[in-house]
């Protein structure tokens, strides 16, 4: 792996909820403009690890981590990092669509409004741009003032992606973004991920192995808080090196 391309790097990550240790010594390097998938059975620590990358665990009582997370070579847990700036760089899409109970328009411009941007033209442009990139524009362009909660689940999730894109991050973290959606919406989201990879570094958690196979370039397999295997997705699915990986992808457990 050439070092110049490393976007995200974790070193010796251990994570704890209270006394319980849920991640053991995770070292991982993720490349720019690739899609990295985290797979593994439920409860193995995928979400915890993902949320370390934008410090979303910071507000959880009793959470503690050891080790470093570097993004563009910079330690994001250092005293000099402003957490708000970090999160503008590292956007996040959650498992359940979570649009605000506001209009579609206001959802998309939320991240810009909190940056103090008021210029109507700028906001309008951002709305159109982001909704186009999240493949939602054609469906909603005539009712931007409609409440976001009136959209279908799949549309809501694409709106959440649009909202994240509007902030112009360079990394997008997705925690099982399609697990609450129907197959057609899921296919749309997967297609979208494929498109977005041109411009973004994407990390996606999924416990759907086929999805990992379809959308990702690299795959990391987690089991009970350990990183068991990390490799090109193709290699993981065709010639896993670890017996446990093979067991998992052939459906012997999990």
């Amino acid at each position, binding site marked *: 792996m050439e070092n110049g391309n490393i976007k995200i790097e974790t070193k010796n990550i251990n994570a704890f909820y209270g006394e319980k240790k849920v991640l053991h010594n995770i070292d991982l390097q993720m490349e720019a403009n690739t899609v990295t998938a985290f797979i593994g059975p439920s409860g193995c620590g995928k979400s915890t690890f993902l949320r370390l990358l934008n410090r979303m665990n910071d507000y959880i009582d009793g959470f503690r981590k050891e080790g470093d997370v570097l993004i563009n070579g910079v330690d994001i847990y250092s005293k000099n990092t402003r957490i708000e700036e*970090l999160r503008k760089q590292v956007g996040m899409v*959650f498992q359940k669509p979570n649009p605000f109970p506001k209009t579609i328009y206001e959802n998309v411009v*939320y*991240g810009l409004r909190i940056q103090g941007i008021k210029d109507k033209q700028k906001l309008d442009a951002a709305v159109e741009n982001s909704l186009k990139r999240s493949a939602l524009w054609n469906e909603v362009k005539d009712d931007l003032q409609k409440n976001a909660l009136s959209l279908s689940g799949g549309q809501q999730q694409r709106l*959440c992606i649009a909202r994240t894109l509007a902030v112009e991050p360079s990394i997008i973290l997705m925690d099982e973004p399609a697990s609450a959606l129907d197959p057609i919406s899921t296919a749309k989201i997967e297609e979208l991920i494929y498109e977005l990879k041109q411009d973004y570094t994407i990390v996606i958690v999924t416990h759907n192995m086929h999805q990992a196979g379809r959308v990702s370039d690299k795959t990391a397999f987690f089991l009970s808080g350990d990183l068991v295997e990390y490799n090109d997705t193709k290699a993981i699915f065709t010639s896993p090196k670890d017996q446990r990986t093979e067991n998992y992808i052939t459906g012997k457990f999990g």
Partner: protein
Amino acid sequence: MKKEKIIEGFLFACAAITLLTTIGIIWVLLSQSFSFFKEVSVWDFLTDTQWTPLFADKHFGILPLLTGTLLITVIAMLVALPLGLTIAIYLNEYAPKGFRKVVKPLLEVLAAVPTVVYGFFALVVVTPMLQKLIPGLSGFNALSPGIVMGIMIIPFISSLSEDALYSVPKSLREASYGMGATRLQTAFRVLLPSASSGILASIILAFSRAIGETMIVAIAAGQQPRLTLDPTVPIETITAYIVQVSLGDVPHGSLEYRTIFSAGLALFVFTFLLNNISFWINKKYRQEYE
């Protein structure tokens, strides 16, 4: 089987007593007011700018009492609303969990202090303090009991609003943080709007409590019905007037005596309207947000 019948009967009796009491109250208010309005025209009652039933030159205009009530209530809300909401946001977003657990019940004690105590507090502590700041302030005035009442009703707003904020789904918070929002931005742009119906309910409750409050104003506002919005002079509220007459030596059955029922009816209609308006606002708001 028999036991169940007894319990059923008991429950029915409880319900019936509540209902009958309500009907009884309304009946007394209406019938007494009816004989009042045989002697005083409704028009005078609603438009006359003086309320002097106990003087030789009698006037029966409810407006001074109504403005007095509103004035004090508004002052109380001006104190309670910003403080209550700030406390709610602080407890919900910033305070450590243990702190929240201790402070919330402590705050609720504020609402449990007997109102007589607040009344004297307003009269002998707050008013003299305010007089140092505002030289023209009378010994009895609307400002001091208004402020003290505001403090009393803080927990209505802070506690219920905090509950409402607490019940906003974590996923909405995280969505906001995830786009680079600070905690304060999240509180104002996501939590408050999402919790709006609960917060509105808390405001309504605090408002009703303030309107119905009697002792504080009876003690510290002076008992002078006066049509004014000036908070520095003595005024009287509807409830304070009712207390004044009930405790005084006005003969039962006289016209003077019946004024308390007409004033009570006015208060009843007033709060009834307020409740309906707020109910309506609440419903409208809910539709927008859910």
